[in-house]
């Protein structure tokens, strides 16, 4: 390597390819930095006025110019948590079936439908929520939950049909295809030897899947969950159509709420006051921070669990 001069490497195209791909890679970092900078600068007015209190107050009053992010942070986290609680077991279960248990004849067409689901624009999911999920929740699901599990604070209060639970369910429907698609690919890429070794040791089909294949693919499956989490945190259109758009903090999942992305989309265009605009930009910054922290925590969790395990699965 050292013997070839820079010029010859340039002539062969190596150096050019290296430079060009480096620039592409660097542009990602540049865009992220620029984004944070712009949000930071745009939020200056609100940052200076409210400081850290912004994170802990719950009043959002554009007329009095009092802004607090707490109800929006709460709504974003609760809906994302509900959606992952529902989507992770369902998605991973479906992926295991498609990759390990289903015959190819069934698995491939099903995968086609799942990819189709992943490509549906979110506003369509919002419509699904408005016309199907909300009436169903109001007429059936929420009254049933109230009657059976009403002793929990989670399932109390008036039933409107929309709210945290409905938003979580619609989000779950949206993120399941991501979890299935990615997890299935990862499971399929587990080497044949691993399965055969397990079977040769006398384990059943299910034991080989659950105790060998799935742990081997753990990193990739976690990756699919991160992707789902990112989408759930940032989803705007579908959430705003079903969440009720009221900045409340309530222990009840039936209560209407609001999410960060939804309030930005709703109020940005008609925000006339500078402070209002600045507060909305700061909410954007908060969402960025939230995604950053959650992703970091998830990665940490993964690191800890894989070290405890067999150490396999790292590519």
């Amino acid at each position, binding site marked *: 390597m050292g013997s070839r001069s820079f010029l010859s490497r340039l002539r062969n195209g190596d150096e050019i390819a290296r430079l060009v791909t480096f620039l592409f890679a660097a542009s990602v970092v540049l865009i992220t930095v620029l984004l944070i900078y712009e949000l930071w600068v745009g939020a200056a007015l609100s940052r200076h006025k409210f400081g850290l209190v912004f994170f802990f107050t719950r009043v959002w*009053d*554009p*007329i009095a110019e009092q802004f607090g992010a707490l109800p929006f942070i709460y709504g974003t986290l609760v809906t994302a948590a509900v959606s992952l609680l529902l989507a992770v077991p369902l998605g991973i279960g479906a992926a295991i079936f498609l990759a390990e248990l289903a015959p190819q004849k069934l698995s491939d067409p099903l995968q086609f439908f799942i990819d189709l689901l992943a490509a549906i624009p979110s506003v369509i999911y919002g419509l699904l929520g408005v016309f199907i999920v909300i009436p169903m929740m109001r007429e059936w699901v929420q009254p049933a939950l109230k009657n059976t599990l009403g002793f929990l604070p989670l399932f109390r209060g008036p039933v*409107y049909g929309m709210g945290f639970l409905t938003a979580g369910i619609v989000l779950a429907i949206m993120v399941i295809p991501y979890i299935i698609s990615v997890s299935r690919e990862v499971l399929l890429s587990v080497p044949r030897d691993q399965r055969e070794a397990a079977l040769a040791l006398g384990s059943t089909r299910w034991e080989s899947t659950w105790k060998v294949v799935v742990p081997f693919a753990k990193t990739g499956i976690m990756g699919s969950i991160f992707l789902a989490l990112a989408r759930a945190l940032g989803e705007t259109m579908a959430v705003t*159509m079903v969440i009720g758009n*009221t900045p409340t903090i309530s222990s009840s999942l039936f209560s209407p709420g609001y999410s960060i992305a*939804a309030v930005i989309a*709703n*109020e940005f265009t008609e925000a*006339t006051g500078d402070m209002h605009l600045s507060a909305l930009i700061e909410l954007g910054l908060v969402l960025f921070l939230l995604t950053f922290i959650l992703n970091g925590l998830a990665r940490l969790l993964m690191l800890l669990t894989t070290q405890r395990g067999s150490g396999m699965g790292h590519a």
Partner: protein
Amino acid sequence: MKRLAGTLLLVVAFGGMLLADNPLLINGAGATFPYPIYSKWFDEYHKANGTQINYQSVGSGAGIKQVTEGTVDFGASDGPMNDDQVKAYRAKNGIGILHFPTVLGAVVPTYNIAGVSGALNFTPEALSGIFLGRISKWNDPAIAAANKGVNLPGNDIVVIHRSDGSGTTYIWTDYLSKVNSDWKDKVGKGTSVNWPVGLGGKGNEGVTGLIKQTPNSIGYVELIYAAQNKVPYGSVKNAAGSMVKADLASVTEAAAAAAKTIPDDFRVSITNAPGKNAYPISSFTWLLIPEKFKDATKRDAMKGFLKWAITDGQGVVENLSYAKLPKEVVDKELKAISKVQ
């Protein structure tokens, strides 16, 4: 193949340059509420006079911002600019900004109550009480008194409001601020407010959809939307004490009744207007035009359009369910156009 692509590229490039060089291209941005009529006007005026006007319906707030920044030639808003915004405009541009009313709109209360099919009557006290959360049952005396003979249920009222920032909300809250001092002190008026009660729906269609789905709900939508989509709506008691169901005539009437007191800069709210047949939740929508244009051709084209819009242009507004400007206001505006220099 390559040659064809090259030729196409040249054509596109030259075409673009020709368009860009058109001296009569005027750019505007702002309110979404009047967008249907504006785009019709711009189209018709372009056919008749060759002046091309581009309009982005980005929202009133963004319209005010863009005209202040000078990125567009004119703005448009559903609410007049407040004193701070006018001051900010002058500070930034060294000239004033003029408001010109173009058409009128109204906001109507719409509801869905099990077993009630006819149009309900609402007093200002009932509307403000409901939206403040103080009146929480449909059979509350404040509602029942104005609706004798209607069998109102004892169910809880579900309030539905707009979740997106909107000129419709501005008009609605402006009205509530005028008829109820508590509303004025605690909530106020604006495109987005801190609602005491209720759920938010996105856009007129979101609010209407929620109301249709939610039993015992009440909300508010634009008259145009209600008329075009056959959404039933109630009457509102006006300042003169008569119950008025909104239609184009009663909205124009509200502007006519307020015409005598309209200030010279046209920055006025006509909610709760006097006049026996005036619908109380009506409003102008405005074009925001700089006092001075650097480019004389542009200025003349802008003035030409403005004059056409408030005179000949008014002929087509009712087809699109907007209410026309009353004659008194048109006369006053025609005089004001000369202020644009």
